[in-house]
């Protein structure tokens, strides 16, 4: 288990976090400048925190009060950067062999050979880094880190500069490594898709602090803060005042002042009239109602009439901007191409839209 409790002040940026990571793969997600890389650097020992402790399986790597700061070479933490950072003056074989120091030469050769086969690098042993492709370079970097049998593997957006198909293959390689070597991995990314594909557990970092730790489901449907909601594609976030509460019906009415509309949302215990909340609806949770179909009961009061002001094609889906009042647009709606074709919608068309209660998520004010 990795336990990180650290603070680091860089003047214009402060990192302050507490993390306990189990074995397996943990995704550290956050926008650029969130402090993801800095977190990895402190774990690896490349940056010294101002205070706190870092432990790996009970071994103290860093303890400010206890005066412990284990030197980088003794931490046995593998680190792969976005740039493969291969030694340009060494061949693929030499790069992978570089970190293996405590083995007799024949065993060392065997180990390198094993890593080369495992990372699909056979035939490239004698090539220099400038002679191989980006994906191959990153595989060499992974092999080089793994060859030393690290206690922990830190991956800092390792696939960010690779093409999509190459990236997918490398992910599979990574899964295989984790399964075979049982090495715990901390994977940093700012890519939502990558975060979801890789791990069940996601740590969301923003502005040097942890915003949320949770499962994919939690992060996606139950974001604890506005920034988490934004990072994971909740396009419709409204700041609303609680107008009426009906606890017995499990309902409350909120008024979105800056857009001038009311909505009915599920009642939340403890909330009072006059309080402010953020309520969110994912763009794919808003429905466009067909004129000829009866409105289902569970849509309740949240039906809005207005106009589709803009349509943006996004490959496998379409984004529609819906407006009822005076603002630029009120809802961002995302529908599949199939639904888009069957609706025959055009810009400027008047429509009715609706969303279900289950689709609404509340975030307390100030979060």
């Amino acid at each position: 288990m990795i336990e990180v409790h650290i603070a680091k002040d860089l003047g214009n940026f402060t990192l302050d976090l507490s993390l306990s990571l189990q074995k397996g793969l943990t995704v550290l997600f956050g926008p650029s400048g969130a402090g993801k890389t800095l977190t990895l650097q402190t774990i690896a020992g490349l940056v010294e925190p101002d205070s706190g402790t870092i432990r790996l399986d009970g071994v103290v790597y860093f303890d400010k009060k206890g005066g412990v700061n284990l030197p980088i070479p003794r931490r046995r933490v593998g680190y792969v950067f976005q740039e493969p950072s291969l030694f340009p003056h060494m061949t693929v074989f030499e790069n992978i062999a570089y970190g293996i120091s405590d083995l007799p030469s024949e065993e060392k050769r065997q180990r390198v050979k094993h890593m080369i086969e495992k990372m699909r690098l056979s035939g490239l042993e004698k090539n220099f880094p400038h002679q191989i492709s980006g994906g191959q370079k990153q595989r060499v970097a992974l092999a080089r880190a793994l060859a030393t049998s690290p206690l922990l593997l830190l991956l800092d957006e390792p696939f960010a500069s690779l093409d999509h198909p190459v990236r997918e293959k490398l992910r599979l390689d990574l899964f295989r490594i984790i399964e075979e070597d049982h090495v715990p991995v901390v994977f940093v990314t700012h890519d939502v898709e990558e975060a979801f594909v890789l791990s069940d557990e996601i740590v969301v970092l923003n502005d040097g602090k942890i915003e949320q730790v949770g499962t994919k489901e939690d992060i996606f449907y139950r974001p604890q803060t506005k920034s988490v909601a934004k990072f994971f594609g909740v396009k419709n976030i409204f700041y609303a005042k609680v107008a009426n509460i009906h606890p017995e019906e499990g309902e409350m009415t909120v008024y979105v002042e800056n857009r001038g509309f009311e909505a009915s949302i599920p009642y939340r215990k403890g909330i009072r009239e006059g309080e402010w909340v953020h309520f969110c609806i994912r763009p794919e949770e808003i429905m466009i109602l067909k004129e000829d179909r009866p409105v289902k009961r569970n849509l309740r009061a949240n039906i809005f009439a207005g106009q589709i002001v803009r349509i943006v094609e996004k490959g496998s889906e379409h984004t529609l901007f819906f407006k009822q009042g005076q603002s630029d647009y009120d809802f961002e709606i995302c529908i599949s191409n199939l639904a888009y074709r069957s609706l025959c919608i055009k810009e400027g068309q008047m429509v009715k839209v609706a969303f279900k209660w289950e689709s609404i998520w509340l975030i307390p004010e100030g979060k």
Partner: protein
Amino acid sequence: MEGSILFSLRLSLQVAIAATVLVVLVGTGMSFILARKSFRGKELLDILLTLPLVLPPTVTGYYLILFMGRNGFLGKYLFHWTGWSIMFTWYAAVLASFIVALPLMIKTTRAAIESVDQNLINVSYTLGHGELKTFFKVILPLSKKGMIAGAILSFARAMGEFGATLMVAGNIPGKTTTMPIAIYTSASSGEWSKANMMVVFFTLVSGFFLYIANKLSKKVI
């Protein structure tokens, strides 16, 4: 060729080779410290080491007399314990050439070391290697060209050292008359054919060294 020319050529080569060996050893260490370490007085150290590049060689030589002369700060202890003084020996010529050529080595080598990607150094650390091994296996091979360029420039500079050498080693025929000093002597006594020969030789050799150094350092930077 005259015996005195051959002697001065041999002496100049001998001095330049000895000075370059010292320059490479000290210069590499100093460059590493200046490029990779931060400490108080670092810039002052850099200035002190670079000064001989811009000072008149006679001033550098004067300082060397102050330090290493029979009554100098260090020289007096040396004389006290051994009864020997470095002044007016070929060792003094080596010392003068070393001090004057050192900045050239440090300038090129420091730049070469600083241009090594920090990520590569960090990778080496995370792969379990300490500073020393990282220096020899990563930093040194990757800044090799800059260092060779620095060594060649230093060698050329050491070969051509005149002012500081004259101050500390003097002009003792058959003992400390290096080629640049021999050229001076020939010119001042009107032995033009002798001077011409040495001047042409020097120009060609120095030009060749510059060409090699440029070729190497362009690839580094």
